[in-house]
């Protein structure tokens, strides 16, 4: 009943309405306020020196806060905006219109990705402003441009990571019966996505065969969120090359597409 070509106009309409709902729900504003507070705390703590330069401390604290609050936003907003439609039965009114289920799922994800883009862009701008306000530790104009470019690229990579997490949450929400289940499972996926490469390497070296096979299987199924950790490279680490960024972007987009397709398939089979 819903087979056919997806209409970009309807997807954009659903994404726009989802974004409007998300902004009105004030979760984004609350998290941005918390981030601004975190930045203020980082500015105070930089005087204590934790064995790093001021600039690196601010960047580490900023990207750490972005990862933490961004993950909360990606999971909570996706679960709430998608399952809220089902709980309120507004999904019935939408799908009784000439709207395909795939358009609904992709539109919802589009709205969340837009929300995460605004979040990451705001935080990246805040970080650039903080580094700028610290003075000029860079040697030349070219080095300064590279630093700010690196911060912007890191913000983009974090947005990609949060997008993959949102798509994983959407997949869970497409068959989940409650928001709580979706949120808890998505957090489990987030933790497992950071740890499974360690488990794979550990069991491959020391574990029994079945454990090594299980860990290998997990590493194929779950996204490796550690690949998106590039913040270290912005201040002091090896520079981010175009090839590295392209590889991470390709990996993220592949997972985004795969998880979204699975979410569409699950939601298509769901009895409403």
């Amino acid at each position, binding site marked *: 009943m819903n087979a056919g070509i997806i209409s970009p106009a309807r997807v954009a*309409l659903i994404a726009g309405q989802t974004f409007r709902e998300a902004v009105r729900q004030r979760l984004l504003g609350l998290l941005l306020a918390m981030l601004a507070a975190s930045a203020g705390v980082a500015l105070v703590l930089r005087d204590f020196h934790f064995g790093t330069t001021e600039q690196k401390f601010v960047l580490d604290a900023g990207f750490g806060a972005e990862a933490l609050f961004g993950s909360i936003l990606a999971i909570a907003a996706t679960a709430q905006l998608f399952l809220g439609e089902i709980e309120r*039965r*507004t999904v019935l*009114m939408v799908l*009784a219109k000439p709207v395909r289920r795939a358009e609904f799922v992709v539109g919802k994800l589009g709205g969340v990705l837009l929300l995460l883009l605004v979040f990451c862009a705001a935080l990246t701008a805040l970080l650039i402003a903080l580094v700028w306000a610290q003075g000029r530790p860079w040697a030349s104009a070219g080095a300064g441009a590279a630093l700010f470019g690196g911060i912007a690229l890191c913000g983009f990579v974090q947005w990609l990571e949060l997008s993959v997490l949102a798509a994983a949450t959407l997949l869970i929400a497409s068959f989940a019966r409650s928001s709580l289940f979706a949120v808890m499972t998505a957090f489990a996926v987030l933790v497992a996505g950071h740890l499974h490469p360690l488990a794979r390497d550990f069991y491959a070296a020391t574990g029994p065969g079945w454990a090594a096979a299980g860990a290998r299987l997990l590493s194929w199924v779950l996204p490796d969120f550690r690949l998106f950790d590039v913040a270290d490279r912005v201040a002091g680490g090896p520079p981010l090359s175009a090839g590295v960024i392209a590889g991470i972007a390709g990996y993220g987009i592949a997972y985004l597409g795969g998880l979204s397709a699975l979410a569409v398939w699950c939601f298509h089979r769901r009895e409403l």
Partner: protein
Amino acid sequence: MTAIALEGVGKDFAPPARGPAAPALADVTLRIPAGAVTGLVGPNGSGKSTLLKILVGLGAPTRGACRIFGLPAGSVEARRAVGYLPEAPEFCPQLTGFEVVWYHARLGGVPAAAARDAAQAALARVGLAGAMHRRAGTYSLGMRQRLGLAQALAPEPRLLVLDEPVSGVDPVGAEQFRRLVLGFKAEGRTVVFSSHHLRQVEQVCDRVVMLDRGRVILQGRVGELAGRAHGVTLRVEALPAALLAELREWLRARGAAGCETEPAGGELERVFLRTLAGTTAGGP
């Protein structure tokens, strides 16, 4: 022209952990002409909502075929012709009534340039013109019900499918609904709605379909079905008590059998509506 045609429609839901699947609908065959107002009645769990969902494409029948204006139910083309109001609709509380209806008008295929006017017209029609820029979270239950009707109406559908549209609505709201449905009928729209309010179904509908345990147990024109009782109701607005016995005796003497007298049903509702109308007329 036939608006809705169901042929041997059945619907099974996934079976419980043990035991066979209980069919929600079994062998439903119906033909509803275009322009008719049809009431779907039956006890809770009889399959009314399931049947309505099949009509609007929210669920596919397990067996049989369902066509809307000759098109397969659930196809994008069929859904362009349908407006649907689910039971007890809720809306995102942070969005205004106008934003909700504008969005649904656009989803229903109204072009961007005309969506604003379509949304405003639909909201005015259901009596929400003055509240359209308020957030839906501040709406009362009756207003939410009317907002649901407005979103169904905004794309100007030929067929309106309404699930329990007056559930939990006060008598004034129920009266407004009655007038709206009669207006839809005058415009030539087909209306199908489910209800537990049989009196209202009798007042508004041309046809009635009665379901029980997923099967159609009765269907036909309201007048024909009501005539099966072979009785008449004589309504007297005010009768002095002393005349009542005399009237019954007079009727009995002329061969009327089974005469019964009881306070007329719906009196309270009539008094309620009349009093409210008086208050509104004399109010600010």
